[in-house]
């Protein structure tokens, strides 16, 4: 439901294609091209890893013939983003299938947008296999602190952990409980007797 624009990272050696895709996406408004790379060199791998992209669009031609089938998984090692192929040369079916979606350079702008949305829906339901997962003792402590209104920084100080560890714990709490808001976590904590009702107003 968010209107925050979805961030796109493009990897294509073609300036024409990069500009074409960028212009289609800017016109539509729901997406924004944050970064354009021409290949996946070591340096650029770091860019992909550090990017907050929601979708990576890549021309498989950037991988040489022998490594092309493994291209998709090379990108997945770097980021959780959905990965879409935009091939400019004939690419074998198996390789194409490994991508979340494939856009053709002859697609209409509407088709491109709808494929982009599709890929997001698919990767959101991503391959998560855990089933039975209770909150760990540490996660419960952190959940209680969140419910009491503490900020990430304060929680980090209280438990002598880094702020990144706090964020990871909070992500895991939300993943396990399905509850995202602080108010919702407070309800969880109270219903499960993790906190004394008197400690939250």
């Amino acid at each position, binding site marked *: 439901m968010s209107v925050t624009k979805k961030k796109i990272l493009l990897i294509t050696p073609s300036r024409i294609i990069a500009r074409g895709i960028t212009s289609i996406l800017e016109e539509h408004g729901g997406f924004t091209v944050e970064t354009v790379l021409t290949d996946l060199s070591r340096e650029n791998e770091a860019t992909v890893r550090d990017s907050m992209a929601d979708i990576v669009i890549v021309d498989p031609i950037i991988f040489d013939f022998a490594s092309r089938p493994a291209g998709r998984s090379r990108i997945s090692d770097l980021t959780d983003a959905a990965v879409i192929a935009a091939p400019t040369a004939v690419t074998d079916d198996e390789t194409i299938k490994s991508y979340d979606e494939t856009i053709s350079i002859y697609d209409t702008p509407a088709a491109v*947008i709808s494929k982009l949305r599709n890929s997001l829906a698919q990767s959101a339901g991503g391959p998560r296999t855990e089933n039975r997962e209770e909150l760990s003792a540490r996660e419960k402590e952190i959940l209680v602190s969140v419910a009491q209104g503490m900020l990430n920084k304060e929680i980090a100080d209280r438990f002598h952990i880094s702020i990144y560890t706090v964020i990871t714990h909070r992500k895991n709490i939300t993943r396990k409980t399905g*509850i*995202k808001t602080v108010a919702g976590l407070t*309800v969880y904590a109270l219903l499960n007797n993790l906190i004394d009702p008197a400690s939250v107003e």
Partner: protein
Amino acid sequence: MKMADLIGADYRLLTVIYRLGIKLGFGEKTVEETCRESGVNCDTFLLIANVYATEGYVPTTEMMTAASAIDLVRYLHASHSYYLDHEIQDLSRIFEDLLRPCAPMQRDVIMRFFDGYREEVENHFAYEEDIVFPYVRSVAGGQRVEGYSMETFEENHNNIDEKLNDLRNIVMKYLPPVCDTVTAIKALSRLCTLEADLEKHTLIENSILIPMVNRLEGKCQ
């Protein structure tokens, strides 16, 4: 195509026609006839129906030009009333029933969360009713208003689905065992319906209203 066939194919469109002011009893009339008789722009109806029926629907420029921004705003306004006056009211009653057997502390905690959600929705809608819709009406009338633009709306159009999603998880996973299961099912299915409908509502605002008004803004200059 017959209106009855369309509704038969996707019953969620019942709420759409209700909000557009189309009454039941259309018998064998076509979509076009039904719309015309109720004074509704048929293209606007089709745009909305497409958002419901097609996942990831992107309207064409022609569709967008043919539809009416005024009708769309009327629809969105009617949706707001529908959510607040029917859906959320009903849910509030269902929750009261559901939580009656609980300890007062548990009841209060969940009801307070529910009220918090209702307040958030009310504020979100109020902003659109007070600022955005009047703006769209004046732009549709060819008059550009200084100090506001669709871009500002786009930037500030925030999420209101998180709390609803939390509420659904709370009912499904963490309700005290004393609660009646049939009432809980009733609450859950209403929550799911509301969640799905609100998602379409937001989609209509983001993928139709915003580009449509962007275009009208261009014409004003």
